């Protein structure tokens, strides 16, 4: 039990993992030695970051430029009412350090762009996408493919969620294989316009945290090559195949996108104003 260089606190804290088949002391050591970047500290990022902190991921980075708004609290469970008006990353870091003071938590209070994506993503083993817009989703996809990092994808709208894992490497699909183009601007309402069922990101984010932990420990079958589709209203989980596209501009046989693109122009969707 006390192998793998655990402190007394860690032996107690992670006791239920350490006695668990398929995790054990060796798996817990892998979690402690790993790092995960959570992009977006919103509905998805809240449960992702909290579960990863509780699980003992050694270093967790959080990217978000925004401040906590009262309308966030219906689903963004990492925040409390006293956090309204504060920077999301500041509040999130405090909450995570309270959940688990033995890990390192790194705030990145910025908008992810083609200028900083490689530098920020490059510092972490696994990337979890919980952002709320298409430009950043395509940017994160391209950057993880180019950096050779696994990407745990999740997205939500109203009562429905999607989740999958994109691995870099040969003949493994990426987000552009799944959806080659974003919808034209204005055709898909945002959560602010269309509403979102508050519990939905809790379900999808928990699935993302599950997959991140499985990728790190190497246990089980990852959600690769399959897209999980969750319909909360019908309580229906379905999965469909995600195939590698040989003509994919990023991960296909002859890539045409070989550097990060200005996705504002690509999608025609401006980022939210970073200075509210």
């Amino acid at each position, binding site marked *: 039990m006390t192998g793998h260089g655990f402190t007394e606190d860690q032996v107690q804290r992670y006791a239920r993992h350490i006695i668990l088949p398929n995790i054990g002391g060796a798996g817990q050591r892998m979690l402690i030695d790993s790092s995960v970047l959570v992009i*977006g500290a*919103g*509905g*998805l*990022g809240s449960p992702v970051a909290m579960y990863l902190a509780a699980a003992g991921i050694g270093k967790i980075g959080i990217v978000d430029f925004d401040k906590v708004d009262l309308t966030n609290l219906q689903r963004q469970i990492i925040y409390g009412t006293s956090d309204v008006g504060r920077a999301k990353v500041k509040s999130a870091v405090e909450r995570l350090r309270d959940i688990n003071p033995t890990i390192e938590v790194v705030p990145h209070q910025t908008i992810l762009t083609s200028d900083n994506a490689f530098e920020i993503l490059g510092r972490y083993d696994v990337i979890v*996408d*919980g*952002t*709320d*817009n*298409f430009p950043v*989703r395509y940017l994160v996809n391209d950057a993880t493919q180019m950096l050779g990092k696994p990407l745990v994808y*999740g*997205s*939500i*709208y*109203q*009562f*429905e969620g*999607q989740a999958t894992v994109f691995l870099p490497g040969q003949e493994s699909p990426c987000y552009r294989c*799944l*959806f*080659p*183009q*974003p*919808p034209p601007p204005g055709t*898909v309402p*945002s*959560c602010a316009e*269309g509403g*979102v069922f508050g519990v939905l*990101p809790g379900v999808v984010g928990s699935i993302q945290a599950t997959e991140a932990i499985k990728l790190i420990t190497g246990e089980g079958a990852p959600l690769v090559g399959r*897209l999980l*589709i969750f*319909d909360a*209203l*019908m309580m229906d989980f*379905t*999965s*469909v*195949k*995600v*195939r590698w596209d040989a003509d994919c501009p990023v991960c296909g046989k002859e890539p045409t996108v070989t550097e990060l693109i200005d996705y504002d122009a690509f999608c025609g969707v401006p980022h939210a104003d970073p200075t509210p």
Partner: protein
Amino acid sequence: MVRVKLPTILRKHTGGEPAVDAEGATLRELLENLEARYPGLTKNVLANDGGLHRFVNVYVNDEDVRYLGSLETAMREGDVVSILPAVAGG
């Protein structure tokens, strides 16, 4: 008869029904059948040039129709067709 599962965003065309039955020998005919009964529904799936949008996927059972026959994909009794738009919420 083929069962067609719809995302929430398209259920306004079917009076809130999450899934409807439709007929057609191919996906193209199936969509025509749907459009005749639920006007406006298929403009969310088909582009102006008549082809499939690149941000809305259509699956027959668990396979993306882009890897089957696209709009000419043959429909069989008991197939389940799922329409899946890209969403970005987080």
